[in-house]
């Protein structure tokens, strides 16, 4: 039915099957949309946030998707600036994931603020000293970059590509993509960093506060670093899930391995830096403000010492070791474990840097306030997930997201099918497909 839109040389399930399978996802999406409008119309009393938890699930989700969407900028940086050419086989997917993550982040921000109709004041009345201003500006600009990076892929749709103008536009954009990617990397460095700065500059909150260089607290660099480390892992994780769902190999192992190896080294260096940061904070920064490390961890189930161990040891050191060793990467189980743990690590780090910052009492006569999200918060947080699944599914169906797909999954009816399939089976030796 929609075969005219589907890229040449690939196999796609019937449209009806797609619609059937996406049905539940669309339902979740609609649930999220209902919750979103409830928040907009009735106000944020629909949430379980309160004056102690001004930042909660949403801001955590925001920081997390941006960190995990960091795969786009880092892969772009490696591909276009550093020149890791091999990565062009995964860059489209990375950009797609990045686009989803960033558009989701912007949407969540639009729900999260108390006066969405005035949200643009953050630009108009910008306070350049605020980390959040930096976040907003860089985030928006980088979202533009992602759109610019995603656009050529859309233009490569079989039908659109037939129009000469769009074909040329796509071509031209590819030509100067390095410029956009460089801008994107610049912007990403700052907004990933300023998201870390958001917590790090809070000198009234010793749990979050860090010293640093010039105006940037250490968390600024740690956030950028961890996004560069965990973002690619997230891209790989989603790639593996996509491959599992489509029951196809979409990107060759050597590409994934390269990305994973780089991510592994990033994660290793990150976790070393993070350990130093934590140690300095626990031994110097916090004590100078009257706090001992144990003061920041409570015996309640949400904010126990386990969170620190989980973040640094389980989701930091362990995946680092796996990802930097060839053996670890070559075993599919340990490889996936490492990738998932790295992703979880970013989530846990952002959780601590948002929710625990809110919860850890500063005044001596206050306790640990507890928080659990309302269904409206959960629904609006799941909304981007549903939206992401749909966008991945549609992009996969109609756009040439994976350049190696045709080669790896030759369609039997075509002439060279048999050959290509044999080649694919022989694995990594196969040279990359023609441009």
């Amino acid at each position, binding site marked *: 039915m929609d075969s005219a839109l589907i890229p040449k040389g690939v196999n796609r399930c019937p449209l009806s099957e797609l619609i059937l399978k996406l049905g539940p996802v669309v339902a979740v999406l609609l649930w999220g949309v209902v919750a979103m409008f409830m928040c907009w119309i009735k106000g944020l009393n629909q949430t379980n946030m309160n004056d102690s938890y001004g930042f909660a699930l949403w801001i955590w989700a925001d920081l997390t998707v941006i960190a995990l969407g960091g795969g786009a900028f880092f892969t772009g940086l490696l591909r276009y600036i550093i020149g890791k050419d091999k990565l062009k086989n995964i860059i489209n997917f990375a950009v797609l994931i990045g686009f989803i993550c960033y558009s989701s982040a912007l949407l969540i921000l639009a729900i999260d*603020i108390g*006066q969405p109709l005035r949200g643009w004041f953050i630009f108009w009345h910008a*306070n350049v000293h605020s980390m*959040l201003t930096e976040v907003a500006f860089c985030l928006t600009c980088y979202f533009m970059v992602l759109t610019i990076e995603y656009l050529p892929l859309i233009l490569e749709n079989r039908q659109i590509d037939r129009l000469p103008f769009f074909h040329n536009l796509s071509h031209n954009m590819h030509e100067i993509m390095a410029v956009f990617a460089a801008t994107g990397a610049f912007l990403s460095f700052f907004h990933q960093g300023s998201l870390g700065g958001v917590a790090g500059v809070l000198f009234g*909150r010793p749990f979050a506060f860090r010293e640093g260089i010039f105006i940037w607290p250490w968390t600024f660099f740690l956030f950028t670093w961890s996004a560069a480390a965990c973002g690619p892992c997230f891209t790989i994780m989603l790639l593996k899930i996509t491959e599992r769902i489509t029951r196809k190999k979409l990107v060759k192992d050597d590409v994934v391995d390269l990305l994973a190896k780089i991510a592994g080294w990033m994660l290793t260096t990150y976790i070393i830096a993070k350990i130093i940061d934590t140690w300095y904070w626990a031994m110097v920064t916090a004590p100078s403000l009257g706090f*001992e490390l144990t003061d920041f961890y409570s015996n309640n189930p949400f904010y126990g010492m386990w969170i620190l161990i989980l973040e640094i040891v389980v989701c930091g050191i362990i995946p680092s070791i796996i990802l930097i060793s060839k053996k670890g990467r070559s075993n599919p189980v340990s490889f996936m474990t490492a990738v998932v743990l790295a992703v979880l690590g970013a989530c846990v780090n952002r959780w601590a840097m948002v929710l625990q910052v809110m919860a850890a009492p500063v*005044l*001596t006569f206050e306790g640990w306030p507890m928080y659990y999200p309302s269904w409206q918060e959960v629904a609006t947080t799941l909304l981007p997930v549903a939206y992401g699944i749909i966008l991945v599914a549609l992009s996969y169906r109609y756009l040439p997201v994976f350049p190696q797909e045709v080669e790896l999954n030759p369609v039997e009816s075509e002439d060279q099918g048999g050959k290509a399939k044999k080649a694919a089976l022989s694995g990594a030796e196969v040279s990359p497909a023609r441009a």
Partner: protein
Amino acid sequence: MKNDQAKKYGMVIDLDKCTGCGACMVACMAENNIPFKEDESNKLDSITWMRVYQLTNGKPYPETDICYIPRPCMHCEGDHGHSPCVSVCPATATDYSQKTGIVSQIYTRCFGCRYCMAACPYHARYFNWWDPVWPNGMEKFLNPSVSPRMRGVVEKCSFCFHRHQLAMNKAFVEGRRELEENEYQTSCAQACPSGAIAFGDLNNPKHTVNQLAQPDNAHGGQPKNPEVFRLLEKLGTNPKVYYVSSREWVRRAGDNYLKNENPGKAH
């Protein structure tokens, strides 16, 4: 900026006198059009610009002791006006006035990101989770000098800044540029039946607050009076609300100390 004209309005609250009666809280609500809901028992979404906390010395009966501590906005000066909340507001909706030392909040500019609340260690900032609703007829007692806030914005104690404006207007008409101490008083300071709250210009040696707190401006306004302390002094927020207590455990409760730390007046 002419330094000789710069005021630094601040408060000194005598915790020996404070009885915890709560009059300051209601005086504030009545003056500043603070909304109220049917259920205000969830203190995490209950707007109280001025909130009286109850401290205990943690000792068992009968050695237990209680102290009440009223907590308005501290109007932190931080480091040269770099107060925790002002510097983080992305939309310049809150500002530190070098002229008065008052941290302002522009409700119509605020778009409700709540970053300032995350920044404030004193929980002095409140978000309007709900549309403010006054029962039919009760909107009649609203004070026209203070605009009621719409849902979705952050609000906090303003040191009754509108009273400063009114007093300045009056002084101007009378051809004066300076205010007398009693011409500008916050609603809570005026109401406190115990006279526990003193308000005035910390820079003016004639004002009670200066005499009580003896702020050391060379050291971020730290009090020279040994019975005076500020909340969370170590964080460097440099608040302009000072507390007096003759009880050592109360002064110690004002800040965090390491287990073996001697709570002297360390710098």
